[in-house]
């Protein structure tokens, strides 16, 4: 049983489809260029080439405005147009924040392009703001020169007061650096849906469809797929809800096309991005991870028993899995985080694949139980959707700050494997790998993801399930025909020589009764043992077992750039997209930079030290205060240049390209 055929991101092969980008408007921007090329004005004239063209659009409005639906349908349309994209929703932490307030603003950002897109974009080029609060919150994110589409109907004193805005921002000059288009979206929507007999509040609810119609025109998109989708979405609602929303969609589209403002509204067509042949869908990390766990269960032909407790941002995994019963998944919402971990271990003890999931604070509570899974040598997958901390911290914001917790965070010497997914789609494969490893070595395995990956989405090349090798359990022994009870015990604890995984013996199996527990056990018989030499041997065995995972994982590869050189950028987890783009941009500038992205954090790939030693300097961007840097120093005695960001926000590409220049002798001066 070896590692599965490695699946690489399918969008790597570049190639120009020729019709990649057609700009027909006068307003054109590039998303990911380094900031020194992004100044107002000059940026518009900057290198507009089919290879690197992209636009970042941000939709923002009140929580109740349907902004997420607007954004996700635009993403769907982008997918069908063949462009690459990456999306990131930005929800308020409050569930039903008061209407019109800044803390009630919900946003959805999409970066789309005719090239490979790896992040949701540094700064929006286009902002659609449905109320003043949305403008206020999102204005600081924008590029100078960005296009702002405003719902003029919402710009009144009442809404200014709610958003604590002193004066109408349209009159204070603060929008002078931007291209602003004002449309009375609410009025236009009410007018459009009037014939359909909706209540005023229902009619107002259609304004996201109106805005969607206008944006579809801006991007030259077909409305039909949205119409088809709406028919399904509203099938169970009163018919006027469907007809009203479709009327709003058409009206928005027609307005943008024909209204006197049309000369002002830019239209740009972003063509197809080069992608490998195959089937694609849009997927978030949470959904991919859930499907990956289901796939692991299918490959192992065992029930997945997922035990969770509600916590942001991990709950969505519980929600997705609770709808995958037909795929051999059962979900249990436990009374607390501890019970969730314990129930998962109980399920694994019973022969199912026990999985639990949480965020940092919940993982902390599970820690003692995880130690028991290590001691009893039971398989288990623990998913950590990391968020900002310590303590409650920033529940809805992303961070990579639980790496210490995963690698080191248990009492006593209690090593366990740790794998980190690097993109929404990779969550699928990482979940399979985590489960395969847990079953092979009979150990709990940490699967790290984070708030960014969990909610971000992009096109995902659908895998072929036939490409994956089945996951085999270490078979239970036959009950030996012997009067010596030790013979049975030794058979039960006879570990595989390579993986040190023990046979998976579950209650109910005939003639194999035995007792397990958290007290140190005899290395051969599993009986309670307080023997000094035995504890030494068991501690070493647990360490060797986790180290042996390195024999089963692929060697580390270089993602891009030279095999030797002055600088390599090393990352892990969700920073992959930003680092990839930053290194790509740097190399396009002629800087010779390599990228290495880690997936297994414990153990590290066996060739990693040799591979990284070929570079003069290692730059390590991570969303914490330097945890992976510590790990590399601890495990490989490598020193790195740290680039730490703990703002709750993912890295911007420009932040990494800046750091690349800083760390390349001569590059900074050359750039200046």
């Amino acid at each position: 049983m070896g590692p599965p055929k490695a699946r690489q991101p399918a969008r790597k092969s570049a190639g120009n489809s020729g019709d990649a980008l057609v700009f027909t408007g006068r307003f054109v921007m590039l998303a990911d260029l380094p900031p020194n090329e992004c100044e107002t004005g000059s940026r518009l004239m900057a290198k507009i080439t089919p290879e690197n063209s992209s636009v970042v659009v941000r939709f923002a409005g009140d929580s109740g405005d349907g902004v997420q639906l607007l954004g996700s349908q635009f993403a769907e349309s982008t997918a069908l147009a063949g462009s690459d994209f990456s999306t990131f929703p930005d929800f308020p932490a409050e569930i039903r924040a008061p209407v019109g307030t800044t803390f009630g603003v919900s946003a959805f950002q999409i970066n789309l392009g005719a090239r490979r897109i790896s992040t949701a974009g540094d700064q929006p080029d286009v902002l659609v703001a449905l109320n003043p609060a949305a403008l206020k919150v999102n204005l600081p994110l924008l590029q100078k020169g960005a296009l702002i589409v405003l719902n003029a109907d919402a710009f009144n004193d009442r809404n200014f007061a709610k958003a604590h805005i002193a004066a109408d921002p349209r009159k204070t000059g603060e929008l002078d650096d931007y291209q602003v288009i004002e449309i009375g979206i609410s009025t236009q929507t009410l007018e459009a849906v009037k014939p359909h007999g909706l209540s005023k509040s229902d009619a107002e609810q259609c304004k996201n469809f109106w805005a969607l119609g206008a944006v579809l025109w801006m991007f030259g998109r077909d409305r039909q797929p949205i119409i088809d989708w709406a028919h399904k979405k509203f099938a169970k609602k009163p018919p006027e809800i469907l007809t009203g929303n479709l009327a709003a969609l058409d009206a928005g589209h027609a307005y943008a096309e024909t209204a006197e403002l049309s000369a002002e509204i830019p239209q740009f067509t972003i063509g197809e991005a080069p992608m490998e042949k195959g089937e694609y869908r849009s997927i978030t990390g949470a959904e991919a991870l859930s499907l990956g766990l289901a796939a692991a269960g299918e490959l192992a032909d065992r029930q997945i028993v997922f035990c969770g407790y509600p916590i942001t941002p991990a709950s969505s995994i519980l929600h997705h899995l609770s709808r995958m019963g037909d795929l051999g998944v059962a979900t249990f919402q436990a009374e607390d985080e501890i019970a969730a971990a314990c129930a998962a271990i109980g399920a694994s003890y019973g022969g199912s694949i026990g999985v639990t999931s949480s965020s940092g604070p919940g993982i902390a509570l599970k820690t003692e139980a995880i130690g028991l899974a290590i001691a009893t040598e039971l398989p288990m997958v623990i998913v950590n959707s990391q968020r900002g901390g310590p303590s409650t911290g920033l529940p809805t914001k992303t961070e990579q700050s639980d790496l210490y917790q995963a690698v080191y965070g248990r009492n006593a010497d209690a090593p366990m494997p740790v794998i980190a997914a690097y993109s929404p789609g990779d969550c699928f494969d990482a979940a399979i790998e985590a489960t395969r490893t847990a079953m092979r070595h009979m150990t709990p395995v940490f699967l790290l993801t984070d708030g960014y990956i969990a909610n971000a989405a992009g096109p995902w090349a659908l895998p072929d399930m036939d490409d994956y090798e089945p996951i085999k359990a270490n078979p239970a022994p036959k009950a030996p025909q012997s009067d010596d009870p030790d013979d049975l015990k030794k058979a039960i604890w006879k570990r595989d020589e390579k993986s040190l995984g023990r046979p998976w013996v579950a209650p109910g199996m005939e003639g194999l009764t035995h007792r397990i527990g958290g007290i140190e056990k005899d290395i051969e018989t599993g009986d309670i043992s307080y023997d000094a030499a035995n504890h030494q041997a068991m501690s070493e065995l647990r360490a060797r077992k986790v180290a042996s995972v390195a024999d089963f994982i692929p060697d580390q590869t270089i993602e891009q750039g030279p095999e030797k050189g002055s600088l390599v950028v090393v990352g892990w987890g969700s920073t992959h997209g930003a680092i990839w783009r930053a290194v790509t941009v740097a190399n396009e500038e002629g800087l010779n930079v390599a990228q290495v992205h880690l997936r297994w954090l414990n153990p590290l790939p066996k060739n990693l030290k040799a591979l990284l030693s070929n570079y003069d300097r290692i730059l390590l961007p991570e969303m914490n205060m330097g945890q992976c840097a510590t790990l590399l120093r601890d495990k490989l005695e490598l020193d790195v240049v740290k680039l730490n960001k703990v703002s709750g926000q993912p890295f911007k590409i420009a932040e990494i390209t800046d750091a690349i220049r800083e760390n390349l002798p001569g590059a900074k001066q050359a750039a200046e």
Partner: protein
Amino acid sequence: MNKPLTAKDFATDQEVRWCPGCGDYAILKCVQKTLADIEANPDKTVFVSGIGCSSRFPYYMNAYGFHTIHGRAPAFATGLKIANPELDIWLVTGDGDGLSIGGNHLLHVLRRNVDMQIMLFNNEIYGLTKGQFSPTSRPGTRSPSTPAGSIDSPVNPCAFALGANARFIARGIDTDAKNLSPVLKAAREFKGAAFVEIFQNCIVYNKDRFEDFVAKKTAADTQLHVEHGKPLLFAKGEKGLKLNTQTLTLEIVDVGETGVPVEEVLVHDETNLALANLLVHLPMGEFPMPLGVIYRNPAQSFDDAFWQHHPTQGKRTGKVADALRKGSVWKKG
């Protein structure tokens, strides 16, 4: 024909390590004998425990066993029951494990009604950590951590279980196998969470704590063995419990020639929640200790409901390859 099973068939080769004279020995013997009596299949039987003296129990039972972590045994057992509902699960816990650190999990396993037998060994003390007061210790308990006597108001295990909506509540005494064994059999027959409080004598740290009602000599007067459909009589039938309809409390009455006719004595109805509440709250000392099956009111067990409500009743009917392609899929090339 196979030889009939004996208690020995359920013993392991492990040396029992409880203190000499500990009540746990008697319970162990009683459980081993009970399993032999009912011809339990060791391969399908699992003992799950937490941490504490009582929680060493699984090591001494020739069945499957899982000695878990402090207070969490109910959660492990719940996951295990989900994974394999066919298993016969016995949970072993104590007053500290089950009602202090693990109170939350005990609450939830009871209200969910997960099918298992829960034996709570109550000795009103922390034994394994050398004698600190426990959540069932009576106020004024002098212990290493409370040299001047404890001040906490104790929890009443059976009242706690009733409050958690447990549907089977029973009591027994460690050394009284004659009465404990039928209670354990009833608990095992019950499909759901069957809670059994067993008064257990900690010979070292809380010796003879329950002597008031356990002592053989006075047992007839101090113990009330309840039985469904039978009057609540004790003291060889000379005394009984009667409901005072004015105060909604139970009172002791003399029965027979010098007292009330036996018809006036309350008849035990194990499905009556109000009566169960009265019985578990009877003041200690003033009243005899109710023992036996106090409350039994079956409902669907969690494990049954879990798989019944599962979208495909646990069957794998779908394929991941198809699930991946649900919704909007587009092709390139």
